[in-house]
Structures are given as C-alpha cells and as structure tokens.
C-alpha cells in the first residue's frame, strides 16, 4: 500500500506543485520570522551583555509614559564618588546619555536616522565595554567638539571639520566634528554623538553636576550581584534603581524588543494568512485529485483495501507533501530572514547574515505548521476517498462529489451564519467598547466560517447573476465558461474562498479606515481653531528656543503651548491612573474648540485645577470639585481640583487616558525643563495666513524635525498615520491574493486536465485556440469576481460593525469607500485573467487527437 501511495504521490507531483508552494509560503514566513527575531535577539543580547557595566545605577522611574515630556531623568554626578567609595568598586563613572535631541547639519538637514531609531548624545568615556573605538581624529576636548559614529557620518555625508547644530533640551549649541568613532559591535541603527563629560552634562542636562546613570566596574573577585547589594546598602534604593550587567542587558533588550516584536508579529500575521488561504488550496487539490482517481480508489477497494487503508494512503500523500513543502519552506525562510537582515542593514542596523541563528524551535515550528496544514487540509478529502465504494471502479461515474447534496452545508452554514449575524448585531448595538469589540471578533470569525461553509451554495445564484450576461456578451464561449464555473459548486466555492478571506479583510479595514479618516477630519474641523500647529512628526518635544523664535516671528499673534507631562492620578474610587496629561497656555479657547459638560477653559487652566473627560471622571467617582492627588516623575506630588469636565468625541486621543489637562504653569512647576510638544499659532491681526506660513517656515528652517501644519496638513498627517495601518493590511492582502491566485491557477489547471477530452472535442468541432483560451479566462474571472463579491460583501458588514465599535470611541462618521470597492472588484477580474494565463495556454496547446483519446 505504501508503495502504491508513493507511486501515486510521484505520479501527481505536477498537480501537487501549487499546493506545495502554498505550504512553502506559510512555512517560509513562520521560519523567517523566527530566525529573524532569534538572530536579532541574540545579536543584541550579546551587544548589551558586552556593553553593560557590571552594575548600573539609574534614577528610579516611578511610572512609564507613552508620550515623553522631554525632560531627562537625572541623578547627581557626585553620586559616582560615593559609589566609588564602596568596597569592591574598581571604578564608577557618571554617564550622560540623552535621546531628547535633534542634530542638524550646516545645510539645515537632519542627521538623525530616517528609520526612527534614536539619536543619542553621550559623554566620551572609553572603557573596554564601549561599543565604539576612535578610528580617526581625536577625542573631544571641551566645549564645541564632538565625535560622530562612522555609519551616520557615512550616510549623512558628515566629515571631520564639519559643524553640526545640536538642539538639546537646555538649548541649542554648535559642535565641530573632531573625530569619527566606529562600532566594534553591531550598530543598532542609532546615530551617536559623543561630547566630553563636562560639556555633555552642561549642554545636554543643563547642569554641570547632573548625570543620567552611574556605571560601576567591579574589582576582580566581586560578583555583580554582590556589588549591587553593597552599593544599594550605601546609597539606598528609594531614589535609585540598580541593575547588574545581566539585568541591564535584559532591560535594554526588552526596550528594543517592542520594535522587534512588531516585525515578528507582522511576519506571523503573514504566516497566518498564508496558512489560512493555503488550506483552501490544499483542500481543493486533494478533493480534485481524489475525484479524478475515484475509479482507481474503487479498484483498490475492490482488490481488498479497507477504508482505513485508503484514507491512510491519502493522508500519507498529504504528509509527504507537507514534508517536502516544510523542508523547502524552511530553506525559503532562511532566505527570507537573510533578506530582512539585509533590509535592517539598509536602515542602518548593522546585522550580518553570518550571525544568523537557527534555533531548535524554528525547524520544529516549520514542520509542525507544514505538516499540520497539509494534514488538516487533506483530512476531509481523505475521508471522502475512504467512502468510495468498490463499485466506483466499475461505474462510469465521471466525477464523484459533484452531485452530492449540499444540505448539511446549508444547515450548518445557516446556523453558524445566524450566530455570527447575531453577534454582529449585538456588536453594532452594544454600548460598551469591550463588549462591542469582543462581539465583533466573535461575529467576524463566525460569519467567515459560515460563508466558507455556505460558499458552494451561493455559487449557483451568485454566478448566475454575475455571469448572466456572458452568453450575450461572449456567445457560446461565455455560456460554456459560466456553466463550467457552475459545474462543481464545491470546487468553485473553495477556490473563491481563498480570495474571499483576503478581500473580506480588506473590505472591513478600508471601511474602518475611511470612517476613521472622516471622523478625524470632522473632529479636526470641529476642534482645531488655530491657524497653524508647529509640531514634530512623532510628537517628540522640541527645545524652548523654538517657542521663543516662533513668538518673535513677524505676523505671529497668539501662541499657545502644549506640553505633555507623565502623571499618576489617584481617583476617589481608588483607581490609580498612570497617564500623560497636557499643559496649555491660558488662551486655549482661541486655538481649539473644546466642548465642556461642566466648567470652562478658564477654570480648568487656573492654578491648582485640572480638566478631564466627563465619562472617565464619572466611572471613577470624580466630580467637579473633587480633589485628586497627582504624582509627577522625579517625586513631585500635589493635589489638583477638578474644575471642568470635557465632552469631547475623542477625549482619549493620542493614548492619553482620562483626557487630563491643566495650566502649563502646573506642568512647569512639577516637571521643570519640560519641552513643548506643540505650538498652536494664530496670525496677528492684519496678517494673512498665507503670509504667515512662509514666515514660520523660515523661522523653523534650522529645525528640520519640526513641521508647520494648518488644518489641511493636519488632516493629511492623521490620514498618513492611518494609511500606515492600511499599507500593512494591503501587504497582507497582497500575500493572500498571491496564494488565492495560486489557488485559482491550481483549480483551473486541474480542471483542464480533468476536462482534457472535452477540450479535445471542442477543438475538433471547431473551437479555435483563442476561443478556448477565452473560455478558460472567463471561467477564471467568474470565480475571482465571485470571491471578490462575497469577500467585499462580508467585509462591508464587518466594516460597518468595526465603525460601530469606533463610534463608541468617538469616531462617529461612517464612510464607505466605494471607489476602493469598485477598484477591488475590477482588480479581482484582472486577478482572474492573470490566474488563467497558464492553464489557458496549456489547454490551447493540447494536441487535439491526444486529448480526444485521453482516458
């Protein structure tokens, strides 16, 4: 039996090709993402392990915050001397290292990495743990001198003798590059600027006696852990956080991990789509192979093979396919990881493929995915094969399974569909976000499953309509292609399902993103009253001098500053909220339209008071007049009185839960030296907005990181941010479509083989090659458009439901992007044409006589 199975596998290897390709794609993404993240993790673990001091002393951070205030946490530099006195300390150095700055060259172009990796300015203190060494020039000696890392110097075309402007938190200053430092380890992609220790403390922290951390070297014979506890005893742990080299490396790696996790999850998302769509392809392939081999299987049964043997034979074939596919996929995954590593290098992260790590989990997951997918996908067809009766060997029944009733599918599909529909209705009518979102998830999954199950039932009615005009438009060729698509609803349904999944996703996401965009547009129209907003691209704060220069710009009337401050607020119900609050200048009403449920701007911005979102306040027992204890970083504490409650659509925009804001004086008092995140600028009386804009742009020319935006630009910015999400979805869709196309190609190719005699007959009685190709193309188009219509229909329903969930978050506008939808339908027809190219060519090249004689 095994011999027969092997023979059959080899005999059908051409027909299994595309299934194998689907497995390869899925496995490649799984393997690629694992290898890539393992490699990067290992590389950085090594980097941080080798560059971390034996013990590092950091200022204690009370809470993390998503939006930076711009102020760096510091500790006194003199602490280094106290630490140096601890027994077992060989050396203690007060480090200065900040990321809250921008570096600009003499042509006002940014020297910061374009990849979003940080620009780090630090003091030059060479130890054997330093990741860099001086390769040309000399070390910085005093104010006005700096070193730049070689990679940045190279990519930004900066050399020794060039002058750079550094916009740091205490103010801007110019430095001359006096040397180049080259990474001796992997460069994580950051731009590094080195100053001498005193300059760094003065220029970067604004105080000559502050530092950002203390690096401690242990004397020989003293363990890191032992030293850590000795230092802790000496300086206490109330204000300081101590880490051994291992702990420091781990936390540094974890910080980087967030970014790497995104890549990993995106890759796994691709793998997931590939698996999901691939399953349809493999199910179809096995169903078709079994249908074509009904007589052969019947013969095996007649010769005495029992059902289990037949089933096992089919499953063995699937496992062989899985093995081959997984092995090739693993190889492709290594290729994919290499490509990603190259891509990272292009972004300035110096990884080399030589460091590639293939952990044991990679091959295990690869084979698990590859074998799992094929086994699961082949299971149903295998069961169907097992029930082939020995009589099938004798009967002339052409294709098994065509006429089998779809009643079970109808019932199961209807039940699952009804449940899914109910969940979606529940989602649309729910009034809390969490209920709504979970019902949405449930509804999406159930309706997708229902559509996949009931797909074959929809084939007849939908394709009758879609292809209804075909006979009139394309004559007998159109009629034949429409009938061929209707011939085996299961097959057509499963083929179209692959495309449907991808397009449903896109339909839903495009409705959601169009609605979000429209909502934001409306909100910007409604809330933004300023003529211009001056802001960094990623909300990173900017130095104070910018504010002064903007104020001094000709034609500027009102400037309202916005400053973000991390806060922890205790509510009457006991809830401790760690969030980011905003501080504003008094005349906020002139630049923004804030809707208040209680109170007003003047009350909110008065000293000792705050404003917050009405709903959040209600949920946690705060009212106007409530006195809330508020903590700030660096240990500042106060009590603020709730003076106003806002009723904004998106009080929780930008991730600031609670929507808390107060006067900028409060922010300055408790987080001194914070930087502005945005300036809202109005033109002075008598100055036209059109004149102000170029003036502002001239003022900001030395600060390429800052942009001047009016309402339209602001909308564009938000739109671009939503678009990033959408691009990701489109990339996923692209992959889904590639595999779906493979599926259509697969189905058509196998159909062409199955219909060899019919094609021969058609050719004999006078169908030209061109007509034959058109016939297959039209069939393909019908299948693809069927998948698109089903997918978009489902996607629209999902999209409307997602919008209902968003509406609970304040994004109330619903927008259906009809243009995109029409484009997708047209695109799917093109997909159909492309998918039909090879099968059609193959069919038209068939030898007529051989085709007629084909068994």
């Amino acid at each position, binding site marked *: 039996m095994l011999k027969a199975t092997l023979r059959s596998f080899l005999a059908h290897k051409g027909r299994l090709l595309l299934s194998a390709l689907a497995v390869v794609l899925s496995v490649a993404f799984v393997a690629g993402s694992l290898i890539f993240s393992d490699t990067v993790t290992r590389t950085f673990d090594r980097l941080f392990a080798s560059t971390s001091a034996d013990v590092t002393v950091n200022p204690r951070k009370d809470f993390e915050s998503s939006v930076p205030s711009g102020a760096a946490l510091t500790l006194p530099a003199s602490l280094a001397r106290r630490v140096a006195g601890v027994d077992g300390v060989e050396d203690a150095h007060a480090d200065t290292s900040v990321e809250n700055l921008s570096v600009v060259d003499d042509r006002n172009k940014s020297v910061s990495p374009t990849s979003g990796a940080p620009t780090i300015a630090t003091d030059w203190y060479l130890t054997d743990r330093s990741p860099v060494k001086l390769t040309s020039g000399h070390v910085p000696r005093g104010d006005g001198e700096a070193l730049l890392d070689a990679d940045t110097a190279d990519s930004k075309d900066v050399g020794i003798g060039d002058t750079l402007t550094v916009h740091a938190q205490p103010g801007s200053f110019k430095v001359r590059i006096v040397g180049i430092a080259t990474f001796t380890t992997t460069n994580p992609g950051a731009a590094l600027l080195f100053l001498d220790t005193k300059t760094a403390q003065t220029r970067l922290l604004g105080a000559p006696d502050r530092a950002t951390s203390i690096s401690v070297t242990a004397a020989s014979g003293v363990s890191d852990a032992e030293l850590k506890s000795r230092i802790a005893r000496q300086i206490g742990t109330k204000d300081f956080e101590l880490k051994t080299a291992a702990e420091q490396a781990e936390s540094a790696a974890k910080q980087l991990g967030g970014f790497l996790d995104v890549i990993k999850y995106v890759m796994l998302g691709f793998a997931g789509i590939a698996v999901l769509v691939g399953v349809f392809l493999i199910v179809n392939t096995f169903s078709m192979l079994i249908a074509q081999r009904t007589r052969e299987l019947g013969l095996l049964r007649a010769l005495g093979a029992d059902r289990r043997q037949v089933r096992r034979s089919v499953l063995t074939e699937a496992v062989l396919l899985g093995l081959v596919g997984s092995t090739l996929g693993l190889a492709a995954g290594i290729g994919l990881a290499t490509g990603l590593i190259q891509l990272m290098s292009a972004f300035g992260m110096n990884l080399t493929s030589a460091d590639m790590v293939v952990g044991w989990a990679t091959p295990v997951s690869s084979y698990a995915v590859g074998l799992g997918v094929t086994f699961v996908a082949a299971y149903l067809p295998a069961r169907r094969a097992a029930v082939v009766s020995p009589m099938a060997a004798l009967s002339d029944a052409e294709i098994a399974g065509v006429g089998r009733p779809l009643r079970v599918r109808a019932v199961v599909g209807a039940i699952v569909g009804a449940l899914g529909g109910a969940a979606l209705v529940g989602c649309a009518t729910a009034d809390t976000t969490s209920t709504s979102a979970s019902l949405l998830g449930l509804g999406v999954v159930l309706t997708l499953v229902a559509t996949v199950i009931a797909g074959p039932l929809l084939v007849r009615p939908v394709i009758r309509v879609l292809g209804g005009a075909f006979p009139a438009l394309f004559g007998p060729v159109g009629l034949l292609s429409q009938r061929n698509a209707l011939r085996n609803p299961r097959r057509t349904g499963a083929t179209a399902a692959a495309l449907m999944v991808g397009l449903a996703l896109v339909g839903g996401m495009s409705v959601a993103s169009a609605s979000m965009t429209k909502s934001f547009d409306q909100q910007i129209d409604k809330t933004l009253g300023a003529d211009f907003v001056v802001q960094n691209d990623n909300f990173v704060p900017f130095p104070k001098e910018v504010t002064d220069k903007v104020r001094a710009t000709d034609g500027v009337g009102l400037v309202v500053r916005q400053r973000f401050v991390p806060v922890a607020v205790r509510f009457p119900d006991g809830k401790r909220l760690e969030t980011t609050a905003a501080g504003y200048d008094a005349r906020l009403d002139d630049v923004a339209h804030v809707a208040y449920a209680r109170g007003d701007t003047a009350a909110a911005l008065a000293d000792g008071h705050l404003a917050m979102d009405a709903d959040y306040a209600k949920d946690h027992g705060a009212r106007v007049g409530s006195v809330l204890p508020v903590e700030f970083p660096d240990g500042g504490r106060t009590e603020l009185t709730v003076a106003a409650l806002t009723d904004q659509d998106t009080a929780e925009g930008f991730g600031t839960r609670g929507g808390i804001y107060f006067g900028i004086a409060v922010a300055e008092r408790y987080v001194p030296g914070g930087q502005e995140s945005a300036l809202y600028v109005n033109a002075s009386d008598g100055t036209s907005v059109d004149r102000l804009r170029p003036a502002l742009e001239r003022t900001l020319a030395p600060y390429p990181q800052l942009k001047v935006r009016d309402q339209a630009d602001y909308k564009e910015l938000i739109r671009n941010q939503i678009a990033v999400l959408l691009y990701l979805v489109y990339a996923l869709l692209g992959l889904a479509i590639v595999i779906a196309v493979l599926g259509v190609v697969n189905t058509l190719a196998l159909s062409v083989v199955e219909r060899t005699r*019919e094609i021969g007959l*058609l050719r*004999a009685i006078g169908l030209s090659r061109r007509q034959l190709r058109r016939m297959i193309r039209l069939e393909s188009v019908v299948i693809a458009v069927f998948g698109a219509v089903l997918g978009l229909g489902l996607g629209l329903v999902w999209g409307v439901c997602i919008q209902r969930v968003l509406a609970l978050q304040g994004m109330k506008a619903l927008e259906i992007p009809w243009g995109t939808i029409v484009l997708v339908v047209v695109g799917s027809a093109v997909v159909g044409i492309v998918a039909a190219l090879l099968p059609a060519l193959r069919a038209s090249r068939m030898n007529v006589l051989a085709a007629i004689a084909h068994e």
Partner: protein
Amino acid sequence: MSTPAAEHAPGRAEADGTAARARALTKAYGSGETTVLALDSVDVDIARGSFTAVMGPSGSGKSTLMHCLAGLDTVSAGQVWLGDTEITGLKDRDLTRLRRDRIGFMFQSFNLIPTLNAVENITLPMDIAGQKPDQKWLDQVIDTLGLRDRLKHRPTQLSGGQQQRVACARALASRPELIFADEPTGNLDSRAGLEVLSFLRQAVDDLGQTVVMVTHDPGAAAHSDLVLFLADGRIVDEMAQPTAEAVLERMRLFSGGQTQAPSPGTPGDPDAPSLTKPTDED
C-alpha cells in the same frame, strides 16, 4: 440503400462529385530506425453523397486516415483536399475553421459537452462560428433523429444511444461537406447501434450528406455504400454494396493473411468482430 449516391447529392455538388481526396498520403511516426508508417502513400476519393466505411484491423491506420482527412492530424507527405481546398499545409487556425464550418464529427464516446443541453450541443459548432443555424434544416434533423422531446436534457440525462443521436444531429446541423464518424457505435448496445447507423444512412439518402465512418464491425460497415479495407497503412481492397457476411469474410482474409494462411472455414470464431460486441479499440 442501393440508390446511387450522386442522385441525392446536395445542390452545391461539384462536377467531379468528390467530397474529399487524398494523394500519396503518408503518415509516419518516429524517425530513423524506429519510424512506423501509419499510412503508406494512400490514394483515396470520397464520393459526394455517399456513405463510406473504412475498415481494418487494429493498427491498420484507419483512424489515422480519418484524422488526416478531417484536418485533425498533420501528414508526413502527400496531399489532402476537402472539396477544392487543399488542407495539407494549412495553419491550425485555418484547419480549426475548416473543421468548424465544413466538417461534422462523431466520436466513439464523449461526444457531448456535459455542461450544455442537447440543443446547445447540436448548434455548438455554428454558435462558435457565430452563425445562425438554418432553423428549417435544424428542425428537420432533430425530427429525423427523434430528438424533439430531448432538446433541453443534459447529456447525463440521456442514454448512450440518445447521446450518439445528439452527436449525429450536431454533425448534420451545419450541413457540412463531410461527416466523419469514428466508431460511432463502438460504445452502444446492438439496438442503439443499429439506430445510429440507420440515421447515418438516412442522412446520406434523405438529407444528401456525405459520411465517412471508421469501424471494425462488419455489421456496421454493411450499412455503407462502399467499404475501404486498410492494412499496414495501405488500402488493400474495397467493396461496394457490402453485406456483413462478405465484409467479415474479407476481414478474415486480411487479418489472417498477414501472418499465416487464410482459414476461411471458421464461422464460429469467437474473436470475430460483430455489431453486438462493443470494443474499445483505438
């Protein structure tokens, strides 16, 4: 049955009365040492308005002859004409058009497109050509073949005999110059086979068509006006106004004659082909 074919020739009969013609037709497979001659310099004339049967044992080249005459297969040497058109050397596109417009086909099995109903199958060649069928003629063909109440049926809903009748109607519907039937009764029981043969006969006698039928069933060949005997790629004999017995007798001579002495005295030969015994040859 004995009416001379020429009297019933359709109006467009040409002076020479030849529907198809081949000269020195040679078809070789393979090359060099292993060359096999399927047809060895065959000359043949198919008279217009006649029913010609081509007979011969397996491998005699009878199907190849039909395929070459019908423009389904290329020839190695020689010339083939359909009416006045030389078809040797025509490109695939012209051959396709020629088959579509001027030739009708019936095969042993799998004659019909399963997704089309009977009438759609019948008019398919004309539909492909974008021509409107001659409704009067179509009605006549359908009625002659007794398919009136089967027109909306799909092939799977028809019996084997009915399917072959539909195939026959399709071959007739466009009033082709020539109908090629390749073992049209090969898959049918004797009664259905007889029916199909009598329809082909009727097509020649009453509708003035020209039919060439490949068969190895002497009983089927007996329905024709003229039997051509092929052996080893050559026409070795012909027989006008054949009867089943005479054809059977002649076949024995050839099949035996190649390898051993003829043994005419074995009427009960169980291997003798007959109409009632379907074969899967070719």
